[in-house]
């Protein structure tokens, strides 16, 4: 490990091509979306003014401004019907009982009912249409005193789109975050210094490994109980690599029971590489990284058994944990081991905090691999995360202030800005 105040010596001779191409890739993406945006839109066809069945019956009116068009930003096979509800629609329990959505291949009919919407609804997605076919729609307002149909709208022709324009905000946030990361990775690689604060749990790693060596006892590493499709496991295994290197240098014994076969395989590759780069490939023993069982509690039973019988001096728990967190940590405590935990499972953090000596909380788990590696390009990503947090905090401060002001003053433009900010951060499909 390297000290952190002075982290950033340039690594000469490393290729910068990967990063450049990544930056190029992101900017290409933006361009692609900007160019393709106008192509995605299809003008909705509004209902003609000369409709059928416009007569109000028994007090309810037909819906207004009926539009039928292809559902935008989807995989096709869906058409969207939108309307403005008549004034009699006062929500559930009012005069309007609901709406029946009717469809026909020609504007003249024959119409058949394909779905219903509840009072207050303004939209219906017909997901039983074929791409390229023409469909005409009308909406019947249902009431106790009789039903009344709207004019016909259409044709709607369903097709699949190439760009999901509903997700433009996600795209912007994605590009921003990736941009921050890539920028700082590049920035720090080029030799600029950055400050990274101490993380107590990581400072303790070398000490904990040293202690085990002195006592002549093994070091236990638990990479969580999830498979490699959980990014926490990926982070855990990466940390294992760094710890493995320290262990190899101290020449102590590292034991890694895993709950998944793929984690076992990946951990073996990682630790083997760590021993190799520490110059001690001969000390690497594949059998110390072994599969127990996929079953959460079977795994815990096995690891607990290992702990009380072999009394490891140091236990690391890095990855995704569920209820077993406290069972492991209490057993570890009872054998007097130094325990360092790290997880991004918010529900398990309280137990690790209570029962372990050090705990990496949430984001610290992901920062750990960069921190332990001491590589400049990895540290850049920590800085990138910080800028992401800064943007998030700024958005919260600005957003909450504007929303509050809009609420207090009731000033229309401010309310609109407030609504825009809310919709910008909202990821629900439109």
């Amino acid at each position, binding site marked *: 490990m390297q000290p952190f105040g002075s982290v950033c010596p340039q690594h000469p001779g490393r290729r910068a091509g990967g990063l450049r191409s990544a930056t190029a890739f992101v900017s290409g993406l933006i361009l692609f979306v900007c160019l393709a945006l106008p192509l995605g839109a299809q003008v909705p066809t509004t209902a003609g003014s000369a409709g059928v069945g416009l007569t109000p019956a028994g007090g309810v009116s037909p819906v207004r401004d009926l539009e039928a068009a292809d559902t935008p930003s989807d995989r096709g096979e869906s058409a969207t019907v939108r309307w403005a509800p008549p004034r009699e629609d006062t929500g559930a329990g009012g005069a309007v009982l609901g709406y029946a959505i009717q469809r026909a291949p020609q504007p003249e009919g024959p119409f058949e009912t394909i779905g219903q919407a509840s009072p207050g609804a303004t939209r219906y997605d017909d997901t039983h249409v074929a791409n390229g076919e023409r469909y005409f729609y009308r909406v019947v307002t249902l009431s106790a005193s009789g039903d009344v149909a709207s004019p016909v709208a259409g044709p709607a022709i369903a097709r699949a789109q190439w760009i999901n324009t509903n997700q433009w905000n996600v795209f912007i946030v994605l590009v921003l975050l990736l941009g921050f990361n890539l920028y700082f990775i590049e920035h720090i690689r080029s030799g600029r210094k950055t400050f990274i604060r101490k993380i107590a749990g990581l400072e303790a790693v070398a000490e904990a490994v040293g202690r085990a060596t002195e006592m002549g006892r093994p070091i236990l590493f638990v990479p969580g109980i999830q498979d490699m499709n959980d990014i926490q496991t990926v982070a855990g295994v990466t940390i294992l690599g760094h710890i493995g290197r320290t262990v190899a240098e101290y020449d102590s014994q590292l034991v890694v029971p895993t709950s998944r076969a793929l984690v076992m395989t990946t951990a073996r590759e990682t630790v083997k590489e760590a021993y190799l780069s520490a110059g001690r490939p001969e000390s690497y023993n594949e059998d110390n990284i072994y599969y127990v069982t996929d079953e959460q509690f079977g795994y815990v039973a096995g690891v607990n058994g290992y702990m009380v019988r072999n009394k490891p001096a140091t236990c690391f728990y890095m990855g995704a944990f569920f209820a077993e967190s406290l069972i492991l940590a209490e057993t570890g405590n009872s054998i007097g081991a130094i325990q360092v935990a790290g997880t991004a499972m918010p529900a398990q953090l309280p137990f690790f905090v209570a*029962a372990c000596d050090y705990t990496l909380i949430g984001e610290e788990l992901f920062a750990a691999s960069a921190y332990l590696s001491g590589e400049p390009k990895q540290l850049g990503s920590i800085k990138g*995360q910080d800028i992401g947090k800064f943007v998030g905090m700024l958005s919260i401060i600005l957003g909450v202030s504007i929303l509050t002001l809009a609420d207090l003053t009731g000033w229309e433009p401010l309310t609109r800005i407030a609504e825009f900010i809310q919709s910008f951060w909202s990821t629900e499909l439109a």
Partner: protein
Amino acid sequence: MKRTIPLLITGIVGAVLVIAYFIPHPPFDSLREDFSIFFDIIAAVAFILGGGNLIKMHGNRVSRREEGWGYSLVTVVGFLVVLAIGLTKVGNPDGFRGSSVTAAGSLFDYAYQFVFRPCAATMFALLAFYVASASFRAFRAKNLEATILLLVAFTILIGRTFVGAWMTSWLPDSLHFLTIPYLAEKIMVVLNYAGNRAIMIGIALGIVSTSLKVIIGIDRSYLGSD
């Protein structure tokens, strides 16, 4: 060469799955789901590695008569028996091609009901004891942070019983905000929720960075040596 191809695979697969999120057109619309299924398939194939390792490890202990080899024999026999009755669906009411492998009446279900289930549930139940011992040991007012942890845990614990309501019921209505049920609710709904939100935002940023590092190949210790 040995490292370039894996790096390319990771980069391409990762980037395509990120971009696929923005493409509703088939086949990209279901690509993210398809790849989740692909992962499950590879993980299922990997069971062969895991199971093989289990048999090898415990089998070696048995054949070398290492200390505790009898227990290893239990593992090997349990594993092989359940594997056999599960793959062949012995005792399944509708036969081999019939209903699901967990159908009631099959030997596999019997092993689940009377071995797997009691063991899993009891292991889980041990937590009741560990929660108590951890509370006793860790919740001590050693410093400010520990005192906050202790007081909050105490309030919530007692607020989960009728005693919480009863202890502060004598307070007048104007001091309602000091009653334990009120405090417990506000701690859970306001502060706990705020803390978890902050943790989740941080985690999301960490995951974005970690994923990016994996995709562009900065983080690659798993690839082993050349």
